[in-house]
């Protein structure tokens, strides 16, 4: 990750020089967004973001960002470091900051822009955050059990959690990640980076998830571990869970994504299927550096 830092700053200068081109691309994306808006009216999309403006304090991070995710697809959100990918996921999940000041986020046709993080999670959106954020002081099993607690408490407190994709049982997630079963009684803080990533994904799978959001799941992982995680994600996708995958590593993401968005400076600058993005050398070079 640190090795490509100089490359990024070089790219940034380049981007400024080509800002007019970026604007043109943004316009194209805006047209796409309008199309998306029309579809939302018909309730077609599982998730849609409409002209979202989000801020971190005074910094304007997401600018008029619109995108949507269809039921059952693997959608990639690509872009370089600082483009606004994580902010997008946090805006969807209802995590604050960022402060979403304009635009709407809808899930299954319901406006969730103002809903609390807990509610949004209970509605069926799970986030596997960039830093994994497993609870280091709890064992693997306890980390996984927290998802059961979430479900039980939601039910106890009268929330209707009838989900399209009920969460897996602990036994089922152990099938996906056998390594976790071996480590069941170990504190999560003692796991390797790859194992923590598995645990973070496993935890999300145990939730009643209709949309799984993965923030840079391959970051900092050794190549063989990347393969394991990639296999798991494919397995999950095959079972019909919708996935929104955020990646800086565009090549890895395009391997498993059906469709991709490219975000730059908080706006969508490309939207299309993975084939189109592979063919679009200019977009790849300009915004992804590949």
């Amino acid at each position, binding site marked *: 990750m640190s090795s490509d830092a100089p490359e990024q700053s070089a790219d940034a200068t380049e981007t400024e020089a080509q800002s007019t081109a970026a604007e043109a691309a943004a316009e194209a994306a805006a047209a796409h967004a309008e199309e998306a808006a029309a579809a939302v009216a018909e309730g077609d999309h599982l998730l849609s973001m409409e002209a979202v403006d989000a801020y971190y304090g005074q910094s304007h991070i997401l600018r008029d960002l619109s995108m949507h995710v269809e039921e059952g697809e693997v959608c990639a959100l690509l872009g370089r470091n600082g483009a606004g990918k994580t902010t997008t996921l946090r805006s969807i999940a209802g*995590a604050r900051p960022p402060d979403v000041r304009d635009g709407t986020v809808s899930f299954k046709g319901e406006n969730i822009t103002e809903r609390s*993080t807990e509610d949004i999670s209970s509605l069926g959106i799970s986030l596997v955050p960039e830093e994994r954020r497993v*609870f*280091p*002081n*709890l064992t693997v099993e306890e980390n996984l059990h*927290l998802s059961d*607690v979430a479900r039980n408490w939601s039910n106890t407190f009268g929330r209707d959690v009838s989900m399209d994709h009920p969460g897996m049982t602990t036994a089922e997630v152990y099938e996906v990640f056998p390594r976790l079963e071996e480590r069941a009684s170990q504190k999560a803080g003692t796991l390797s980076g790859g194992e923590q990533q598995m645990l973070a994904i496993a*935890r999300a799978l145990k*939730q009643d998830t209709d949309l799984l959001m993965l923030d840079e799941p391959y970051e900092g992982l050794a190549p063989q571990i990347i393969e394991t995680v990639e296999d798991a994600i494919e397995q999950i996708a095959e079972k019909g869970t919708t996935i929104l995958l955020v990646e800086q590593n565009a090549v890895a993401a395009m391997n498993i994504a059906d469709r991709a968005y490219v975000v730059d400076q908080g706006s969508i600058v490309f939207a299309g299927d993975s084939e189109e993005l592979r063919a679009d050398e200019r977009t790849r070079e300009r915004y992804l550096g590949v």
Partner: protein
Amino acid sequence: MLLLQSEIASILLNGLQQGAIYALLGIGLTIILGTMEFLNLAHGALYLVGAYVGLIVFQETTLTNGFLYSIGITSLGFDGGFLAAIVLVPVIGFGIGLLMERFVAEPFYDRPETDQLLVTFGLALIVEETIKNVIGGNTFQSIAPSTLFGVNVSQPVSLPFVGLFPSWRLLIIVITFFVIGVTYLAIERTDFGLVVQAGTRDSEMVRLLGIKINRSYSLVFALGAALAAFAGLIGASIQTISPQIGTTQALVPAFLTIVVGGAGSVRGAIAGGMVLGLIISAMTQTYSQWAQIVLYLFVALMLVFRPQGLFGTAEVGE
């Protein structure tokens, strides 16, 4: 100085007894700090309330005076009253904790720590001054019962290795360790405890999992308050009672306890309380005029060489 075996044994017992009170205070403070990242300087005020509720119950249930005497019940006395206080004080603390969380703490969760310190310190002063005005600024004698369930607890008992040891202090060790044990199990062995433990590390991630941690917050705050009030009642049964004890006997030791144990760790609060209790007890029995100096020096050295405490992972205040 050579210590006799019996002296060492009584240092240990006194240390456990004082340490258990510190642990009760430290657990409450540390779970509130850990889960809500809320620094509660009013924690000592809850100890103060616990002590004075005990005092009022004592005054109203004596054989020759007070409420019970005035309505003609003269046989119960404080021995029954203390049992009532043991139930009443944690319940009152719990209630105050719920109110404090809702009306004092919650509006300040997202405010800077300095604001939290100011509002809770202000609250502590309000409680202290109110007690001075209503009950008086004078110092009262400790309020230990003389018998409990018909058993005489005012006389020393003879223990192996120790020799004579006040039976009430012995009973305190049993009672406080029982409460600490129950609290520890509630945190370690229940779903509520699991959420609290997770919340002490990353409350946003808990919410991202769909858990309404705010409900747990009120419960955690109330639990911490109940423990502090209970500690106040126990403290009042062995030490003199005055409006200053909320700070001197409770708030400061509670902070020292979590500095030693590690912020956010229940195990740390228990261990920290015991370590401090033993230091105080050992110094009091040997070079008592150096007790405070050694205590603070020890905590200062902890801060320098092990700022995360015995069981903590993050630095205090991080």
